[in-house]
């Protein structure tokens, strides 16, 4: 082998070692707080998880170097697809408050109807769903980070730290409310009307592993599928606060974000 071949193969090996290091995931699946180790189940899982935890402990420098290298090369190695499937169905709706005194809610996630087969339009919808989900996920991660830091740095209890973070929420959902607000305004607002407040509500419902949504939930969803749902005129525009909940059939909605353009 020529010196050049030795050099190239050493560089290639280094590259592969760095990629492998950057791809080692945390044993807790990145969740905070970290769950307990696999206390139940077959010994195989316990053994595998113990090996994973040991590898994680001993590979700190390798992982850090790998991450630094792959981020410089713009080759991220975060392969956590479906790692945390969860046991709830997820929904997101935006509520628009229009002056004078009109309120409308629209379902923005998922983009498709749950009672229909997803074909070509489903592919297009998957990009919109990914966009909304990703913006929401970033918002939640950043909010949680701010909450943890506020609690730690200011020594506050949960309620006070939540109130403080609620006054300074991350901007990750701004594109979402702006996009759907513009679309709503084009479709429904007349001259002189404008959106004064927008709310993002996150809905959770039991995951129906034995079939589609329950009939009563489907009834609620059908109303959203027909278009924006207008509420009673004169509704108090500043009624709901961060963390408030509402219930529709088995969907529990929680207010996560308020935007006042």
């Amino acid at each position, binding site marked *: 082998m020529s010196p050049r071949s030795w050099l190239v193969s050493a560089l290639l090996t280094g590259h592969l070692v760095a990629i492998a290091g950057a*791809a080692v995931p945390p044993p807790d699946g990145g969740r905070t707080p970290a*769950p307990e180790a696999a206390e139940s189940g077959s010994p195989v899982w316990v053994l595998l998880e113990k090996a994973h935890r040991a590898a994680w402990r001993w590979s700190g420098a390798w992982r850090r170097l790998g991450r630094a290298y792959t981020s410089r090369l713009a*080759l991220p190695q975060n392969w956590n697809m479906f790692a945390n499937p969860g046991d709830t169905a997820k929904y997101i709706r935006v509520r628009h408050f229009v002056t004078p005194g009109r309120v409308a809610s629209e379902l923005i996630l998922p983009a498709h109807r749950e009672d229909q087969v997803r074909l070509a339009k489903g592919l297009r919808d998957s990009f919109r769903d990914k*966009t909304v989900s990703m913006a929401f996920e970033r918002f939640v991660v950043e909010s949680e980070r701010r909450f943890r830091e506020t609690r730690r740095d200011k020594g506050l209890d949960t309620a006070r730290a939540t109130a403080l973070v609620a006054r300074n929420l991350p901007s990750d959902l*701004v594109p979402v409310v702006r996009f759907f607000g*513009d679309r709503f305004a084009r479709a429904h607002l007349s001259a002189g009307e404008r959106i004064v407040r927008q709310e993002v509500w996150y809905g959770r419902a039991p*995951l129906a592993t034995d079939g589609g949504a329950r009939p009563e939930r489907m009834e609620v969803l059908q109303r959203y599928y027909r278009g924006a749902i207008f509420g009673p005129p004169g509704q108090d525009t500043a009624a709901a606060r961060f963390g408030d909940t509402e219930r529709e059939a088995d969907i529990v909605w929680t207010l996560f974000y308020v935007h006042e353009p």
Partner: protein
Amino acid sequence: MTDPAREPSGRGVSLVHRWNRFWFEPIPPHPYAVLRILFGVIGCLTLLVMADIPAFWSPDGLVDSTDDPWKGSLTNLMGGTAAGGLLFGFTLLCYAAMATGFRSRVAVPLCLLTNVVQSYWNPLPLSGAHYVTRGVLFALIWVDTGAVWSVDARGRGAAPSAPVWPLRLLQFQVAVIYFSSGLWKLGNAEWRSGTALAQVLANNVYRRFPIALPEALAPYTVAATHLVLAWELGFPFAVLNRWTRRLALALGIFLHLGMWLALEIGPFTLVMLSTYVAFVSPERVASLNRRGRSRDAKSGALSA
């Protein structure tokens, strides 16, 4: 790179010889051409599905609002929608050039560049498929992917051989993707208990069909959950041997197609299955060319 007639002997020398062959053995350039065409076509199709410029490309749309100086100055210079549209058009052009093999040596690096730029411009709609594509493009930039089956190759003589190491990079990247994905799942109680796959299949955001999974299938979904986990964790080891590699790839095709049938997950299935070309013997891929030629020759003789 090594003359078989002068193959060195001795254990140490043999290891060096194997190492040399592993990285630098010349192979036919056809696997690279197939990867170029597949990822060029997938890139074009994905962009066409995302062709809603005001939604996915304009800074006034569903675009990440992070303050970015170069994004801001480009937007101020020519207007947000125009800048987004220009990026979309240029990216589409690059992928079209890559698919057809027009100026491949420039088109492939440009595709990699636009792939990175796209994730700075708006990472929100991008899934794992985008980042797998980046890994593939990173492997392809080191080799002339347009040596065969391309516009570039028209009028050229016999195609020169290509080095094997970019293919090795890609094989390793795919193995890392599966193994890492398996480790992520291993940390989750639902994957260990076997309920995860049923939950994934019932996910209201991804599910393709509005029908119930028959209760009788429950034990099978538990077995399938563990099969997926075992397959992902075992993939890097299975591909080391010729026979287990076939099994791992066949299982991969089956699982990816099953996932595509049950779930709407964008271009991910297509992207992952396309990477399997890296695991097919380069000589076998090149033989497609010879078969095509002999078929052409036969039909030419018949028409004559």
